[in-house]
């Protein structure tokens, strides 16, 4: 594999590289790795020393990174985070279904669906333009205050509904752009084979569209995971609220840092997965023949 000067003609599947050039390349890449390691170590070493030796650091450390409060807070915040996860899972389920339905409605051309199309457009405009926190407050405090019988009064339920309403508007737009990005010739080909309009959507258009929008959808998921904390304003003791209670009791901000770390731990896998998926699609697109 390393020395096959003349053999490259006999074995064409082994790419031939000039041995001298190869060793020069190897030397250069070893040197690059060394420089990268050194500069990283030096940079972060300087930052850590600078922060730790600065006069204000002990105060900051005590307020934000206190070990005792960390130990006290994290089990409680972690248990409360289960509520965030529950909100997220339930909301996401409805958001995906409603978002897809809304997108299909807005794209349909059937005259009978015109009223629904108008409602869909209004809905999107309203909920994309309204701050999510405002929707949470409006539904979470407003609806239970009406005292209407038959409606749930649990603020957790209304907070989740508020998130669903807000995010469905975004996700529907993502689906819509994905469906619109499928070339009309795909639809024509499917119809010319005798597939009905519904079959064409189901077997030809949607599978391609959904594959295309997975990365932006995952982005919205990451954002929704964080926004489950907005429900804290309604009172349920989810992660942010649990941290806040300890902060108020102890006059120390370490529990907020605990909450931040837990939310980050929740979103990082999804963010990396999104990166990976995007990169893979990019590779597929560039290696495809068209």
């Amino acid at each position, binding site marked *: 594999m390393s020395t096959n000067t003349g053999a490259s003609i006999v074995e064409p599947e082994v790419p031939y590289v000039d041995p001298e050039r190869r060793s020069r390349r190897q030397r250069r890449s070893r040197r690059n790795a060394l420089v990268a390691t050194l500069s990283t170590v030096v940079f972060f070493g300087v930052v850590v020393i600078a922060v730790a030796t600065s006069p204000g650091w002990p105060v900051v450390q005590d307020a934000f990174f206190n070990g005792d409060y960390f130990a006290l807070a994290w089990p409680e915040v972690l248990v409360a985070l289960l509520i965030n996860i529950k909100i997220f899972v339930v909301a996401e389920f409805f958001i995906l279904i409603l978002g897809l339905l809304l997108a299909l409605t807005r794209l349909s051309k059937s005259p009978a669906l015109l009223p629904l199309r108008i409602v869909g457009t209004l809905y999107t405009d309203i909920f994309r333009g309204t701050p999510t926190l405002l929707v949470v407050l409006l539904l979470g405090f407003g609806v239970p205050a009406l005292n209407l019988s038959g409606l749930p009064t649990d603020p957790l339920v209304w907070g989740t509904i508020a998130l669903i309403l807000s995010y469905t508007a975004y996700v529907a737009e993502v689906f819509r752009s994905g469906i619109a990005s499928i070339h009309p*010739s*795909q639809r*024509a*080909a*499917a*119809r*010319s*084979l*005798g*597939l*009905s309009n519904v*079959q064409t959507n189901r*077997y*030809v258009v949607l*599978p*391609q569209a959904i*594959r295309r929008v997975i990365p932006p959808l995952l982005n919205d998921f990451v954002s929704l995971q964080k926004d489950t904390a907005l429900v804290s304003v309604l009172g349920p003791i989810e992660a942010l609220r649990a941290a806040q209670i300890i902060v108020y009791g102890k006059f120390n901000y370490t529990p907020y840092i605990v909450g931040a770390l837990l939310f980050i731990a929740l979103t990082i896998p999804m963010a990396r997965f999104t990166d990976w998926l995007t990169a893979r699609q990019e590779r597929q697109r560039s290696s*495809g*023949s*068209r």
Partner: protein
Amino acid sequence: MAVDLLRVDDVHKAFGDNAVLRGMTLSVAAHEVVVLIGASGSGKSTLLRCINGLESVDAGVIMVDGLDVTADDADFDAVRQRVGMVFQSFNLFPHMSVLGNITLAPRKVLGVSADEAEQRARDLLTRFGLEAKADDYPDRLSGGQQQRVAIVRALAMQPQAMLFDEVTSALDPELVGEVLDVIRGLKESGMTILMATHEMGFARDVADRVCFVDAGRVLESGPPAQVLGDPHEARTREFLARVLG
């Protein structure tokens, strides 16, 4: 004696104020191969798309095997099952394997079982020398192979006639032959064919009849030797002088 399988009678079609078909009249008998030639924009693709119900007409009648495609209550699904169409840009479904592309419509439209659809698809692929590609995805195939798969996909619906819209125009010159050979084979097996093409040599070889389309109607029609070799109309002569150089 010949029965018209396709009949287009005084069809008009406009996109906005752009009148594309203006009194198009044409018929294709069973087992006949008719080639449409004509300048870009003369309406060849529009005609083929109207026959397949992908566009609606403004006036006139199109009959496919006794079915009125232009009726208000036309059953397009029935029409499309009788007439297969292949496009310039292949339009294979990129998220499905070759086999998936070919079996989709037989399974979902005709209700053929998955096993039977696959068996038929494999038989067709073998017939066209594509059996090794059955499990590949379209982006792994050359343009010529993709277009042959697109033809097989249309044939899997067992149509009585095939519409080809410049099926070789998007291909590299060295791949044109393999696709034209497939169409030649279809003619030999008795398929009824209506095709638009710029391949004049192929039209001369294979067509039973050549129609010169000009400004949305058939200006001249006849055996290839006559239309291509000794056209009556000045417009036809001009067109041929341009494309044959």
